[in-house]
């Protein structure tokens, strides 16, 4: 394992900003690059990055990196936000994952993403542990953007239960995933059950899925369970379930559970009187893909997403 300073920047009072990456294997063929947290609340993503560094180090020590393949892991990019409990870049609140490929002579965060992109581009496979703007609990899945360069068959090799294909919006064109793809890297985002807290089980599942993928691509030797043959779904095919009232949100089903049309999914309770305002029923048979996780909810918010007519 070789540690490299990927990007640095001086600060006035805070410690200097230093992003480190960990290289495994010989400096030969740029096989795979893995990036952890890009936002300050992505604690789980940071944790998975650290797990992978530890596991890859052991694999490397046992001669498990095949040929001249090189793997780079950057567990944390936006740690300044992690350390002060901010969601985005702590000084100007910009979202680093909407600033790729960056500009080396541009503004602060654009220079930062340009510096990172310079180091992470050129790899055959790019894997990012991401989070989604809609906060809540998800079933573990691999996410790909439909850019014309995407390859759902490869995404299946992670062995996670689902692969989600998303049509990029204009705003998505500035993400790391999209820019990786535009630069010839096969890019994947891995999403687990948690973001701002550590979920040990799904973190280990995500780390194992990456090792499984690297093994199947001939980059490492690692014996693991075969995982799932994923169901490939398109994001627009997920059925959104919305609230018809605002108030306390009492969830009756969890991600990964099967529901039948008419099953109780959640109850909305009036915060002042404790009366039940609404009971939200499943609009279709299917598997719960996403569930709102906050105790309160606004009217007409998306509280669940369901994979229609799929059975467990």
């Amino acid at each position, binding site marked *: 394992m070789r540690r490299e300073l990927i990007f640095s*920047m*001086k*600060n*006035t*009072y805070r410690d200097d900003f230093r992003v480190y990456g960990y290289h495994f294997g010989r400096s030969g063929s740029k096989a795979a690059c893995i990036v952890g947290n890009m936002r300050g609340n992505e604690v789980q993503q940071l944790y998975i990055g650290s797990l992978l560094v530890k596991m890859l180090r052991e694999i490397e020590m046992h001669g498990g990196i095949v040929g001249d393949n090189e793997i780079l892991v950057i567990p944390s990019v936006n740690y300044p936000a992690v350390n002060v409990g901010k*969601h*985005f870049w702590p*000084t*100007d*609140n910009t979202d680093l994952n*909407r600033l790729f490929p960056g500009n080396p*002579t*541009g*503004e*602060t*965060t*654009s*220079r*930062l993403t340009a510096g990172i992109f310079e180091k992470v581009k050129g790899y055959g496979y790019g894997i990012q542990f991401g989070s989604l*703007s*809609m*906060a809540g609990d998800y079933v573990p899945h691999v996410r790909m953007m439909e850019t014309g360069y995407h390859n759902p068959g490869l995404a299946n090799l992670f062995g996670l239960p689902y692969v989600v294909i998303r049509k990029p*919006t*204009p*705003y998505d*064109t*500035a993400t790391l995933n999209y820019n990786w793809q535009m630069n010839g890297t096969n890019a994947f985002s891995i999403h687990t059950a948690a973001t701002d807290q550590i979920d040990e089980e799904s973190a280990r599942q995500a780390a194992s899925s990456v090792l499984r993928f690297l093994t199947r691509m001939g980059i490492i030797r690692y014996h693991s369970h075969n995982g799932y043959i994923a169901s490939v779904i398109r994001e627009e095919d997920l059925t*959104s379930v919305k609230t018809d*009232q*605002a*108030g*306390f949100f009492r969830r009756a089903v969890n991600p990964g559970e099967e529901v039948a049309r008419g099953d109780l999914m959640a109850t909305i309770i009036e*915060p*002042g009187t404790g009366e039940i305002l609404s009971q939200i029923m499943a609009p279709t048979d299917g598997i719960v893909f996403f569930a709102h996780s906050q105790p*309160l*909810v*606004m*009217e*007409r*918010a*998306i509280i669940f997403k369901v994979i229609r007519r799929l059975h467990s």
Partner: protein
Amino acid sequence: MIKTVASIELPVNETLEIRKNVIQPEHLTGEEKRFCIVTGTHGDELEGQYVCYELNRRIQEQRRHLKGIVEIYPALNPLGIDTITRAFPVVDVDMNRIFPGTEDGSVAELLAGKITEDLAGADLCIDIHASNIYIREIPQVRLNESTSNNLLEYAKYLNTEFVWVHPAATVLESTLAHTMNMLGVPTLVVEMGVGMRITEKFCFQLVDGIFCLMKKLGIWDGDVLTPKEPIISLGGEVGLVNAEKPGLFVSHVKHRHDIRKGEVIGEIVNPLKGTVEETLYAPCDGLIFTLRAYPMVETGALIARILERRQS
């Protein structure tokens, strides 16, 4: 007449409402044009608030001159304004990156969809922004080069010194202005002033311009001034100055003043060490149309933009 554009119940005892004031002529003919002023998409931008007030006041004082329908939307992100938050609070989403919105989406996307629906069919729309808390701007019209051909003629009436035609960027296709232009509602973006403050003279200047444009459209038949002849920049004539060191920026120049190439714009100093870390110089002769307002800077922070004099 105050009308509600969109309404969502919040969890406890509160309704989020986006409202507009519809001001009609004393005698309706049924042939009136509809002119919309929108602002407050970013909750930390307040210059548009004063423009809305002043426009409202002047129209109502001389209502006899009103020949069309003026609709004023002062707060597209009311929760943001009332909580001094740039993004849509709770979910931390930039409202100006989710247009055209959708009925099926998150609450923020749903609201964007309602706003789009409400603005559809207008004859002209002006979207007023106030930079951010870091940067002060002179009043300027910003046009995307993909839509500038149709809009330039209108922009000249807005009484700004400067019209900036910037290159098309995919990421900006999710803005309100781009969406409305694509829907056939000519929409001009005005940037001016600085976040969290109002600059009275800029607000009056723009209100004067809005009346000029209203007269051109046949919506106003009262007296108006002759609008300033703006410099039209295609972007190449703008000199950029970025910080190369972090610290406290102390300006030596005034915003909206001319500067000569090589003149000192300001210094970045280190309060702890008592040292000057960097002296910043003008890269060209011209008008300082953008100047750093928030003194603490990181490496790369935008300090100034200078419009080269050769354009004038």
